[in-house]
């Protein structure tokens, strides 16, 4: 177990290093940010001074090593625009994205797994077909359009819910959260629904496919021959067997939701990390882009590590051979 963990952490480290190089090179290729930062009317001396200050006159590898060295010291640089340490900037936006993503995943899971189970349990029923039709819509309709539609219906026409923003937040464990108040919930509901829709469709289809397969297996037949009730057959046999693909996709989707909730955050004007990265890209705020992408890589690596560990708990056949 310990050996497995060390191996995975080393792998993760390699991925982070490789990604840091790719990201650094990619951003470097975009061009010189100085021209965006300074007044076009400023003179050459000021320009030179700035270039020197940020180290853009040094060779590429030197710039990279300086960057990496700073990163290892917890310094991801300073935003050109906000004039703030990048790490603080990103972390200040993290709670908003975190609560949005988790709420969306919660909605998708709590609805998707039961609906998928039902659709797989009674695949020929009318309700199952309706659920499957809905799931196709869920992941084929573009999310920005659904977002706009939700705003149109619930915010503009019906006026039940606010059209955007975060509403009031309270500080919990050093994070500003809006899910602590009812008004906060009214703000988070629409964007979370919007974000959940794609995942909901995906989870329904995944759960259904697994359920259909497991229901026709010999061990379900054997369980029925033992006189197990249908509730036990589904609750004990089916749920445990379909959980592996679900955990995989859940992990991947959680990662991508945290990292790329960009569209929804933009449509609902949600002040999360996605909105920050989009704003930074438009103004070529290099440190923010680089730090954000590396943070995303780190996030994915961590989630995958956790998913791998859960696998072992779910399926004894892929449990890591412990030194027993």
């Amino acid at each position, binding site marked *: 177990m310990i050996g497995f963990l060390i191996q995975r952490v080393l792998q993760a480290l390699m991925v982070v290093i490789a990604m840091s190089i790719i990201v650094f090179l990619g951003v470097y290729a975009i061009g010189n940010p100085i021209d965006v930062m300074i007044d076009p009317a400023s003179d050459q001396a000021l320009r030179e001074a700035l270039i020197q200050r940020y180290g853009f006159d040094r060779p590429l590898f030197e710039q990279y090593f300086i960057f990496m060295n700073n990163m290892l010291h917890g310094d991801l640089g300073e935003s050109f625009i906000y004039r703030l340490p990048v790490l603080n900037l990103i972390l200040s936006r993290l709670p908003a994205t975190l609560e949005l993503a988790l709420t969306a995943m919660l909605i998708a899971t709590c609805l998707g797994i039961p609906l998928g189970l039902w659709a797989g349990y009674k695949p020929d029923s009318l309700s199952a077909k309706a659920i499957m039709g809905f799931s196709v819509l869920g992941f084929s309709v573009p999310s920005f359009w659904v977002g706009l539609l939700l705003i149109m219906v619930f915010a503009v026409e019906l006026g039940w819910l606010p059209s955007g923003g975060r509403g009031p937040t309270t500080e919990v464990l050093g994070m500003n959260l809006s899910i602590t108040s009812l008004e906060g919930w009214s703000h988070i509901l629409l964007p979370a629904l919007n974000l959940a829709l794609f995942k909901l469709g995906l989870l329904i289809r995944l759960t259904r496919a697994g359920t259909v397969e497991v229901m026709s297996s*010999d061990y379900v037949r054997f369980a029925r021959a033992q*006189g197990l*009730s249908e509730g*036990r057959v589904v609750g*004990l046999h089916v749920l*445990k067997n379909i959980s592996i693909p679900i955990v995989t996709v859940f992990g991947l989707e959680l990662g991508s939701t945290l990292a790329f909730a960009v569209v929804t955050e933009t449509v609902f004007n949600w002040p999360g990390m996605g909105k920050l990265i989009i704003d930074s890209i438009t103004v070529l705020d290099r440190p923010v882009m680089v730090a954000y992408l590396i943070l995303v890589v780190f996030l994915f690596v961590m989630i995958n590590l956790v998913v791998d560990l859960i696998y072992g708990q779910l399926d004894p056949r892929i449990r890591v051979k412990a030194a027993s």
Partner: protein
Amino acid sequence: MSETVLRVNNLQTQFQTRAGVLKAVDGVSFEVGRGRILGLVGESGSGKSVTGYSILGLIEPPGKIAGGEVLLNGKDITRLKGDAMRQVRGAQIAMVFQDPMMTLNPVLKIGTQMIAAVRAHARVSRKAARAKARNALAKVGIPSPEERLEAYPHQLSGGMRQRVAIAIALLHSPAVIIADEPTTALDVSIQGQILAEVRRLADETGTAFVWVTHDLAVVSSLADDICVMYAGRVVESGPAADVIASPRHPYTAGLLASVPAEHEPGTKLPQVPGSTPSLANLPQGCAFAPRCAKAGPACTTTPPVQHFEDGRTALCHYPIEPISCQPLSLTSTTYRSAS
């Protein structure tokens, strides 16, 4: 014969398909006594497994039981619905399946699966259920049962897994166990052990077995009685030793002739010509007639059930005359009880 626990009367199981109604089981009747083992023999597609599933009410749409009765201790269980049938399954009639690699859930511990099976029919504590599971494992000859309860199926050999499946079937001391080719996937020595174990259990517990198989060698060494099925019908039945010594139906004779045990090595093995007919396209009258050397003009009409001495039957216009030579044996071992 001992008291009858299971009587199947004119059972009809049909599957509604695009090609029409398939009569997978077409008027099958047999009975099994307490502690007896009935061998239900036939080739693939003869309807023997469907018969087993029908008895347990495990036929799924588009299949359905279209007629007949399954009398368990005199009570027709084909009319039971939902929870009433669930209470019969596993408690009064249990089933063991063909492939022990597939019948146990790979991600659940043996103990978890057995406790679920115990608690499906008995309102007992987890601890009591566990004790019952442990005893059942010990009863089928599994060493250190307590440790096996903590094992996952992939940690056991095929033979062990099949013993676990049989132990699960035995949990509630059912009147009948339907065994659907349970030793087919095992190698011969393990098969021998399991057969001996089953024979012992039948004698000791009084549980009756319906042993579905295509393997005549297994049947000849294990079963008390035989039903030979062809295209959804029972074509011959009777005491196992008699049927094997002197088959009355040409199909049974053909099957017996194709068992390698009796033949000189190097000589060509006789086989039943042709192959099993498609259920969608059965010939008129006797379904076996196109493959039968003895077929005559009468075979285009449905053959009558002919009754012979010792309660033997054959579904044939031209049954084979009994032969009175040495009873032949297909294997050197026999698991049949001495009685």
